[in-house]
């Protein structure tokens, strides 16, 4: 099986870089970046990705809109989608779950949390 390809979506380059480095440390070296949901959706439609790690609060298209677009697209709806966000309101967490997110991490987070969630989601979707 080829190495899974990740798409990291966050409007802050610092956070994209942190997530990319963490994924590398966990053992996933294949990752691309997008600065908002609109760019991410274009990338997802243009080439194959196996996992999306997305922020929520972003300009142009936020994480919820991206998730809804992904789940509504026949070619993309099966992609595991992990929210990594500073939004800590319960209604946002419930909304993410009901919209089809596979996991939800609140910032600030640890490497162990990211690793646990990614592995868990991958096992479920294997």
């Amino acid at each position: 099986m080829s190495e899974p390809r990740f798409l990291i979506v966050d409007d802050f380059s610092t956070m994209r870089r942190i997530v990319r480095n963490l994924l590398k440390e966990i053992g996933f070296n294949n990752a691309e970046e997008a600065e908002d949901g609109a760019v991410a959706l274009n990338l997802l439609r243009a080439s194959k990705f196996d996992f999306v790690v997305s922020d929520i609060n972003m300009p142009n298209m936020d994480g919820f809109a991206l998730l809804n677009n992904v789940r509504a697209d026949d070619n993309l709806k099966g992609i595991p989608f992990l929210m990594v966000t500073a939004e800590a309101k319960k209604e946002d967490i419930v909304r993410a779950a009901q919209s089809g997110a596979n996991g939800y991490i609140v910032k600030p987070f640890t490497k162990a949390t990211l690793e646990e969630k990614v592995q868990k989601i991958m096992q479920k979707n294997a």
Partner: protein
Amino acid sequence: MTMGHNDAFAIPDGMADAGAPALQEDLYHRIGHLTRTLHDAMRELGYQDSLADARDNLPDARDRLAYIARLTGDAAEKVLNAVDRARTLQDEMSGRAQNLKKRWAAVAVYTAGGERATPAGAALVEETCAFLAGLDGQTDQTNAILTDIMMAQDFHDLTGQVIRKVVALAQTLEEQLVKLLIEATPPEQRKKVAVAVAVTAPSLDGPVVNPEGRSDVVADQAAVDDLLASLGF
């Protein structure tokens, strides 16, 4: 509390009776009167100048916040660059140590009988092998510290979101001040006052700055997991 047609709105008890429309009309009338009195008082006291000053200072405050966001972002990027360079050096050193460890292990076997080495040489070989063996653990520890330094840079994302929110609030406040300024300015001078561009505040809240005592937010990742588990996820 009595709920209206839309459950998102609640009408306090005592206001949901037949007299409510009249009461509301009276309330609006009184608020309107107070507003007019306030405007007149501000105009008479010359407060439109203070309002104009406050309005003029808000863009400066926004610029300063943007400056903080830019500088903290640059600092975080510099740290991440340094972490990347340090990690590359660590990996190189670790690789070379692994290589040397194998070669010194071969020498250690060769000198084990003591026939081809002085006692000092044999001790040096043994000590070097022990040092190289311990280097792996130290490299792992250093890499873990570098990860901690990298993770600490998430402050830029979190503070950046808070700053963005404050900037949006400042813009809204500026807009309101402009409106107030126009209303407090004598009619003949109103054309001179610029109208600010309306700004829509973001609907998402960003990081919770003060979560204590709030029941609508989660305090940590464990609370997120509990909430999702209660929903069957």
